[in-house]
């Protein structure tokens, strides 16, 4: 990819990604439909076309490996759709592997991954072998129809194959002559296809060139169907559509080709044997399309369709997410301006002589606020993508892993239409994949074991997504063996992560949360014992980075459910602004439960750890000024506040001096030189040009509970 501009490269990647995602979806559907009756030929054809497009794209951008892969895949798919090879498990596996390899090639081209891709040649050989294994096309059997040779000449090999197949299956052929308005042809044609689909297959369509008006076009549609003419007429017929059955030719004619035979017919037959609507003596129409000897050349027909469809294609635009980030940043800056104007307005309104200007300013500010909120939500909406994209990828993972593990697993997906910020979707993919892998590897039992305990032989993994207020909830649920709490606890004690005396104090929920403790869950033997939870600490950290939380619920023998709760968007968050020793900090509201006045009477100290009792429960406290080593000339307040933050089931009270208020903020990451500084999720600009650090509540809780050396708090379960 030598001289490719950055922009073109980006276009190439996003387009290729999009196609590969669609490809993967169609393949999964194909996989799912296998063994349930005949394969949907349209699906195979879609897959073929997608690979074909990829090949063109790869050629355009000089991605040689992608070209080569597409070429071989295309051969296999072409054989598949022409019925030259069967859709076997092997063929499907190869196709799925092809998708994985596409992903790797893209990653290499993008430079995000070093991958020698050394196994590609081997894979290409396997593909080539598969397409060489083809059987010769069976000779055409069945009846011949009264079809025009002009039509047959323009049928593509694929269309011809479908025609043969349908004839072999004993379907009858029908001619539909339908008039479409040029303006609506796309929608009308696809609705016709949808209506026709349950009853048969549309093999081809060609313009007749007989559109009565300039803004309409008439198509001859050749359709194969088992339904009777009457059924089709009532279904598809109407003012704009005439339907006729193509008469069967006598089998006595030993013509091996499908040749029309209309002896005695005076008028030259139309492509599909329609009697011409106009007497042959009529003067040629001035319109070019009207001149149609026999069948219109293929180029003409595609041209007409292409022209029409071009318009609808331009309805969507593909945008680089970074451009949206930029816009979002500008909105962020604007909201800083808004806050500043708000403050100014307040002070103007307070002065009596400026009252009127103050009122006017106030009204303007309110209007500005509303518009800005609309702009913000508009941009946020653009960033949203349905989780379905990710779920499709996961479905592929399920298929692959369950085959590797030799377990039958059924993936049930609900809420694929739930929308989440694009960035979150990207970051979610690894954690979810990990959870699913765990579920298949460790939770779902082997078939024999399942049958022994009376469970259905096929395990189920459910992937549910739904929106809950300003959060999105994703559940990963399995009907596997559940977590063995006893073994989990004893493993934790054995590794010194839990004191023997602490064991009795743990409640159900807390025991399960042991799964997320690093020292415990990374050991694979415990993962085996517990049924779930290899590397769950990593999953939890990654979800925490997105401002999300993960919860676990498990019942022995019944199954395990992980619930991931995420903010819908990352860009702008609500935060509580606090002060510690005269410095301003922001705490993301998503992790704040409440803010309370610190009651000196409720404070206790246990083993150096400050605690307070809040409505009967014990809340560990963290003096932020001590943790951060802050001092100031300002005398410490007698009654500071505790901001109660929580992650999952753990709570921590952050002791701060002042609560300033709630504000929408744009979080920006700290630079690489501050990466090692723990406890901050980033920084944000407040209205007065000052930068405020954003506290990373999950990290602070983690630190408090792990009892880090410089932490002012110790470990406890709240």
């Amino acid at each position, binding site marked *: 990819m030598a001289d490719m501009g950055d922009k073109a490269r980006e276009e190439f990647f996003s387009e290729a990604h999009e196609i590969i995602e669609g490809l993967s979806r169609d393949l999964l559907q194909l996989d799912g439909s296998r063994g349930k009756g005949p394969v949907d030929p349209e699906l195979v054809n879609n897959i073929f076309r997608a690979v074909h497009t990829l090949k063109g794209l790869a050629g355009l951008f000089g991605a040689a490996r992608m070209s080569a892969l597409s070429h071989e895949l295309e051969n296999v798919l072409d054989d598949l759709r022409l019925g030259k090879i069967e859709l076997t498990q092997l063929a499907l596996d190869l196709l799925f592997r092809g998708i994985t390899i596409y992903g790797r090639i893209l990653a290499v081209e993008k430079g995000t991954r070093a991958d020698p891709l050394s196994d590609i040649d081997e894979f290409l050989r396997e593909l080539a072998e598969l397409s060489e294994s083809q059987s010769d096309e069976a000779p055409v059997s069945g009846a011949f129809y009264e079809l025009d040779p002009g039509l047959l000449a323009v049928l593509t090999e694929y269309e011809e194959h479908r025609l043969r197949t349908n004839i072999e299956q004993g379907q009858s052929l029908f001619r539909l002559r339908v008039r479409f308005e040029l303006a609506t042809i796309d929608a009308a044609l696809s609705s016709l296809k949808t209506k026709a689909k349950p009853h048969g297959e549309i093999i081809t369509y060609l313009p007749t060139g007989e559109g009565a008006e300039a803004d309409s076009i008439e198509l001859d549609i050749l359709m194969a169907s088992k339904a009777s003419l009457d059924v089709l007429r009532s279904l598809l017929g109407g003012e704009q559509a005439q339907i006729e059955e193509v008469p069967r030719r006598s089998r006595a004619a030993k013509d091996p080709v499908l040749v029309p035979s209309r002896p005695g017919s005076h008028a030259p037959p139309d492509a599909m044997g329609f009697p011409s609507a106009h007497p042959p003596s009529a003067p040629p129409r001035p319109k070019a399309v009207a001149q149609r000897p026999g069948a219109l050349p293929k180029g003409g027909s595609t041209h007409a369709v292409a022209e029409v469809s071009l318009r609808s294609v331009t309805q969507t635009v593909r945008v680089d997410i970074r451009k949206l980030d930029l816009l979002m940043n500008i909105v962020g800056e604007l909201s800083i301006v808004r806050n500043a104007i708000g403050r100014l307005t307040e002070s103007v309104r307070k002065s009596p002589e400026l009252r009127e200007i103050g009122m006017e300013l106030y009204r303007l500010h309110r209007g500005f606020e509303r518009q800005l909120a609309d702009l913000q939500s508009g941009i946020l909406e653009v960033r949203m993508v349905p989780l379905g994209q990710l779920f499709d990828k996961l479905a592929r993972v399920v298929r692959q892993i369950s085959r590797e593990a030799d377990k039958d697993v059924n993936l049930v997906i609900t809420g694929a239409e739930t929308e989440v910020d694009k960035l979150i979707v990207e970051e979610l993919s690894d954690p979810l994949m990990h959870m699913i892998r765990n579920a298949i590897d460790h939770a779902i039992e082997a078939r024999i074991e399942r049958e022994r305990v009376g469970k259905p032989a096929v395990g189920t993994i459910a992937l549910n997504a739904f929106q809950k207020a300003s959060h999105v909830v994703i559940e990963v649920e399995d009907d596997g063996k559940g977590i063995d709490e006893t073994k989990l606890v004893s493993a934790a004690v054995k590794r010194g992560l839990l004191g023997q005396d602490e064991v009795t104090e743990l409640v159900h929920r807390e025991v399960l949360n042991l799964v997320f403790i690093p020292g415990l869950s990374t050991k694979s033997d415990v993962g085996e014992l517990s049924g779930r939870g290899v590397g769950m600490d990593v999953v939890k950290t990654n979800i925490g980075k997105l401002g999300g939380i993960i919860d676990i619920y498990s019942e022995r023998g019944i199954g395990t459910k992980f619930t991931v709760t995420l903010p819908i968007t990352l860009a702008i968050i609500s935060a509580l602004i606090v002060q510690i020793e005269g410095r301003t900090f922001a705490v993301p509201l998503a992790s704040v439960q409440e803010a309370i006045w610190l009651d000196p009477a409720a404070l206790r100290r246990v083993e150096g750890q400050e605690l307070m009792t809040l409505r009967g429960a014990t809340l560990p406290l963290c003096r932020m000024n001590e*943790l*951060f*080593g802050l001092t100031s000339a300002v005398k410490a307040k007698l009654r500071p506040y505790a901001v109660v933050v929580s992650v999952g089931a753990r709570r921590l009270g952050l002791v701060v001096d002042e609560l300033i208020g709630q504000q929408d903020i744009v979080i920006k990451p*700290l*630079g*690489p*030189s501050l990466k090692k500084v723990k406890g901050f999720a980033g*920084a944000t*600009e407040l209205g007065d040009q000052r930068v405020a*650090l954003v506290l990373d509540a999950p990290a602070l809780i983690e630190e408090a509970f792990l009892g880090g050396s410089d932490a002012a708090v110790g470990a406890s379960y709240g």
Partner: protein
Amino acid sequence: MADLLARGRNDRHRGIKVRGPRVEYLAFRLGADTYAVPIGEVREILKLPPVTEVPRAPEEIVGVVSVRGLLVTVISLRARLRLQATESSRKGRILLAMGAQDEVIGLYVDEVLQVYRLAESEIEVAASVLGGRLGDYIVGIGRPDGALLTLLDLRPILGRSEPVARDAT
């Protein structure tokens, strides 16, 4: 040991240069002494904006500032060079330069003085007595118009290795 010697020689090579085009150096004050860096290394000079200190960060990190929406980490050049701390003054400025991993770094200096044009032959080799890490940071000494400039190499100071030739892939 051989390594150290080799490096020392390389350093000297960097210093001994024949007459060549003049390079512009930006001179600034750290404590009582004057230092300078090639002006091409400095992207921008900022008046001291409100700096937000970052608790738990290394001492040499002054804090973070916002430069038109971009968060910039500010490092005290004095602390990085292990010089004695002095009171910060109103004349303090922040020089923006590129650090490692394409991060824009702010370098806090006590005062920005002026730009000098130095021919390469006017640059004396850095005194080898400095030695150690500091030796790596210093390119040489310039003496234009009776001034004494310690010329710094920002690449090792900012943890940036030798510039890697970037070619379009």
